[in-house]
């Protein structure tokens, strides 16, 4: 009797194992990160330690910025609520380790897309939400109006662990100028040291310079030089190895940009469901099965547009209206002379 019981239990166990395997393989399509996110009820998002316009927390702890909006868009798509995001402020040095170790699921922290980062360290860049370039800030009183006036012995304040340090070397080296790099771990200390007069120039991405200028004692005393010394395409990053999650983040960002292209805003999104244009209908979930491939429902993109807004709304709210960079420059749609161009949702 016992003999049969033993065999029976092992049979039951085997069936149970098989069953979990089959359900697992169906759910696996939904991606492990997506499953964990839905189980937890919030998106884990890594942001900066405070960069106005990109990711910055107010006194009440509410995060705003164009980088923050990418994470909010993903939360709206997969959880139905743009506020269900847990933000983790990270230094430039910590950010990639936090992502690869699984502490966060999206890194949306003004991070430059480069070959070595994409290929080497277990990361995948999903797109570009801000086209930037490295520049220099100097004191107006110095009389410097162009980088061609830089002389041997100039001291430059910057952050460690960024592409900035490498570009700076390339720039000064190629011009044969000797310089003193003063590299801090946190942006606030860089600003404080430059503001006190420790350095002649402060170098980082131009958007960062414009944003940090607002933190200076006397913003009007400083100017950003016209030259741009590098390409800095900034965008959200995910861990390598979860293709579905990667697609969700990529298309959440694409949806925001494409929505602007077709004139869909948070205010008119609902009424666009009855539009005559099938491309607009697809963007608000009224045509096709655009969410099924991600394991999401059909209105995931409608929720992004309604709760977060399109890219133009996000830019205006965070960067233009705050006076950081009123001119969109390259970050204008391709139809309006910029270089924002995303593949179509269809």
């Amino acid at each position, binding site marked *: 009797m016992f003999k049969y019981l033993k065999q029976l239990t092992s049979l039951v166990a085997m069936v149970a194992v098989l069953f979990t395997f089959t359900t697992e393989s169906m759910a696996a399509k939904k991606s492990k990160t997506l499953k964990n996110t839905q189980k937890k009820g919030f998106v884990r998002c890594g942001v900066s330690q405070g960069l106005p316009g990109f990711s910055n927390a107010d006194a009440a702890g509410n995060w705003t910025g164009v980088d923050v909006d990418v994470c909010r868009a993903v939360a709206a798509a997969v959880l139905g609520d743009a506020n269900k995001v847990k933000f983790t402020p990270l230094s430039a040095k910590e950010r990639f380790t936090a992502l690869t170790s699984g502490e966060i699921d999206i890194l949306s922290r003004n991070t430059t897309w480069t070959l070595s980062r994409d290929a080497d360290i277990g990361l995948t860049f999903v797109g570009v939400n801000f086209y930037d370039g490295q520049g220099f800030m100097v004191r107006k009183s*110095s009389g410097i109006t162009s980088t061609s006036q*830089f002389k041997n*012995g*100039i001291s430059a304040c910057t952050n460690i662990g960024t592409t900035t340090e490498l570009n700076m070397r390339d720039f000064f080296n190629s011009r044969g100028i000797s310089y003193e790099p003063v590299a801090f771990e946190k942006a606030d200390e860089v600003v404080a040291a430059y503001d*006190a007069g420790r350095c002649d120039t402060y170098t980082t991405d131009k958007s960062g310079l414009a944003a940090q200028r607002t933190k200076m004692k006397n913003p009007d005393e400083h100017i950003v030089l016209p030259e741009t010394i590098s390409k800095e395409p900034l965008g959200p990053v995910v861990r390598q190895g979860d293709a579905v999650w990667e697609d969700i983040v990529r298309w959440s960002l694409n949806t925001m940009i494409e929505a602007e292209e077709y004139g869909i805003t948070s205010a008119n999104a609902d009424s666009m469901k009855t539009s005559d244009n099938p491309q607009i209908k697809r963007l608000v979930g009224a045509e096709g099965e655009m969410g099924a491939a991600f394991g999401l429902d059909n209105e995931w993109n409608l929720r992004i547009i309604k709760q977060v807004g399109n890219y133009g709304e996000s830019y205006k709210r965070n960067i233009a209206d705050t006076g950081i960079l009123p001119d969109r420059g390259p970050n204008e749609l391709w139809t309006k002379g910029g270089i924002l161009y995303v593949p179509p949702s269809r």
Partner: protein
Amino acid sequence: MTVIAVVLVFGFFTYNAQVNMENRGIDFGFGFLSQESSFDVQFSLIEYDGSHSYFRAYLVGLLNTILVSVIGIVFATILGVIVGIARLSPNYLINKFAAFYVEFFRNIPLLLQIFFWYFAALRALPLPQDAEAMFGISFLTIKGWYVPAFIWQNFDIFFYSLAAAIISIIIIRVRAKKLQETQGKQTPVLLISIGLILILPLLSFLVGGVRLSFEVPVLKQLATTSFIYDGGVSLPPELIALALSLSLYTATFIAECVRAGIQGVGKGQKEAAASIGLTPNQVLKLVVMPQALRIIIPPTTNQYLNLTKNSSLAAAIAYPDLVLVFAGTALMQTGKAIEIVSITMFTYLSLSISISLFMNWYNNKIAIKEK
């Protein structure tokens, strides 16, 4: 049993890390150390720029860590001994002032003190063009402390004369000790030593053809309101602020060790020494200090270790130490987190163990040897 447990735990962690890294497509290896680093460092004791390897960058960081630790240890010890003795002073003012210093500086977190000295210094120091010359040759400015550089001719002759002076002093000391032990004669060792260390190098200047000249820093204009000093040697304000805060902080703990050591020597010892006719100086040198040192050395070793490890807070104020250069920039540029963090941990461990071993050796040397 314990060994098996340790091996299993470590084995599990290694295996776990391996599996996770494989899943995420990260490979493990130290090959990156020979690659070109392509970033520059502000301040370096050896020749370095971005065209050197990551290993060279590691050495730059390590040497900078050692530099600030050595400066910190020297100044903390000098200040600590002075304050420790001052706390035992019968003079009310000196005594209370020393006590106030100890309580104030040891009760404020070190990171805050570092920020305070750095940003206070930056606010207080003049711009290069406004700086007043110190003795006409040295300038303390917001961009650093510019001092004249030494330019030597025939430096090797000077070096040999100095070495000869030091060796002969050691020989004289040994002989003087023997003389005292066998014949009871006292030799004025200190006077002879000072004389030797002054006269021999001086001779090398007079007859050895050694020449020393100074390169004084000169103001140079970069732009309308932007100046630096050219020539000479520049000590960056980051190094000064870090060394200052580390010394001031650690000196409080060393002062307490010194006080404990001196008070740990029985009163009867001093009275007995005085009663056999030793002068107060001799009492301190021959009776109190040898016994006090035995109490002072072990806890002071701890303070030296703390200072060395605390120097890693340098990253906050841009002093390019091991943590900022190697566990910071190099880690970021290569993404080799596990490799670089292990190397850094192992380096600090080795530094600490070396200090410990040296101090243990010294402690054994001065310990009472039961005969």
